């Protein structure tokens, strides 16, 4: 059990890093990575939302969307038992769960860490439209090659958040140094950040094959 969890975490943090190998969550990755402190705050907020949303969307997937005897809606509408709601309702139900959670995190941060709340600014409500959060929910449930258990899905969500934080921290370190370097004017800002990300992705290639 512990070995399996360790494999999932290593796999999503290093081998299939969400930002560097799967291209998910690039907007906040480039938008908030200028300073290490805000990168860290963003990473923690995203990890929190990802872990919770993985857990909740797993429950929704297994007990509301999937056809079968476990479906709760089938108690009221028996025809749902065979059909399920997976095709029509997955996107809408997942995005609503995520939007609600982000609102919750926003309220908590405003009370508990006002400095971080100010620092994250517009990017905090934008976690809703962070494709990494919806992406991990989809990869845990509908687009997973095999059926994941509740613990595995939650751990994968948590690991994906950690992987996102690691990539953000590395990038913010690079960008803090880039700010002091003389770069051709047309490459300043986003273009050079992209090229650095490409080189980081190349480095992360070294991890491929580590997990079967």
């Amino acid at each position, binding site marked *: 059990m512990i070995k399996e969890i360790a494999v999932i975490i290593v796999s999503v943090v290093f081998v299939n890093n969400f930002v560097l190998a*799967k291209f998910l969550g690039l907007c906040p990755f480039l938008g908030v990575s200028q300073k290490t402190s805000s990168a860290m705050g963003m990473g923690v907020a995203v990890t929190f939302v990802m872990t919770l949303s993985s857990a909740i969307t797993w429950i929704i997937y297994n007990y509301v969307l999937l056809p079968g005897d476990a479906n709760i809606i089938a108690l009221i509408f028996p025809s749902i038992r065979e059909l399920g709601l997976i095709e029509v309702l997955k996107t809408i139900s997942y995005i609503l769960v995520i939007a609600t959670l982000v609102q919750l995190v926003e309220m908590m941060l405003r009370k508990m860490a006002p400095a971080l709340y100010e620092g994250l600014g517009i990017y905090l409500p934008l976690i809703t439209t962070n494709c990494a959060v919806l992406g991990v929910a*989809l990869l845990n449930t509908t687009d997973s090659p095999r059926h994941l258990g509740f613990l595995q899905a939650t751990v994968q969500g948590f690991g994906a958040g950690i992987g996102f934080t690691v990539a953000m921290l590395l990038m913010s370190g690079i960008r803090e140094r880039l700010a002091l370097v003389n770069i051709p004017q047309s490459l300043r800002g986003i273009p050079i950040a992209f090229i650095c990300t*490409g080189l980081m992705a190349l480095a992360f*290639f070294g991890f491929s094959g580590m997990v079967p």
Partner: protein
Amino acid sequence: MAEQDNLKEFTKGIIQYNPLFVLVLGLCPSLAVTTSVKNGLAMGGAATFVLVSSNFIISTVRSFIPREIRIPCFIVVIASFVTMVELLMKAYLPPELNASLGIFIPLIVVNCIILYRAESFAYKNKPFVSILDGAGAGVGWMLSLCLVSAIREVLGAGTIFGLKVSGSYQPAPVMIMAPGAFIVLGLLLGFFNWRKLRKSEKTMREYMKHD
């Protein structure tokens, strides 16, 4: 005059405010699906459909949406159209194309371009111009996806639209994998920046000459 204005609403999304190269929005799918031109076209088409329909619906019902909860309302409208386009694509497009687009079709729902057009244009304007605006942004994004994917497909697989480019070219597979995507887009953004800088320098010089 009015017709010219309408045309402008359409063309501004393609060049002046190109979603990918000028506004730098919608990055995740722009990098993930641009391994071949076919994928780029399919993704752009799906996003254009969602943009046009959600812009139309949002601008039609804009007076009923309270300001405080407008974002959740937009997301629900967009998510409905994304579900529609996903089912349509599953029904009519070849399965291998669907497989290569993968989770990026449901992820159109969190594409920043669509929410951005809904918030900054459709919520304030009439339905007809909103359709034009959505179509312009969609086509602009589709064209930029085609540009990125054409470069990556030629360099990485040695083909374009699945046809071989040259017999002697040895493809570099890294271009269709993650690092190639980041580097191609970085260099393209740099190129467009360079052109913009050169243009503004030129007008500056001309201005000085006249002075």
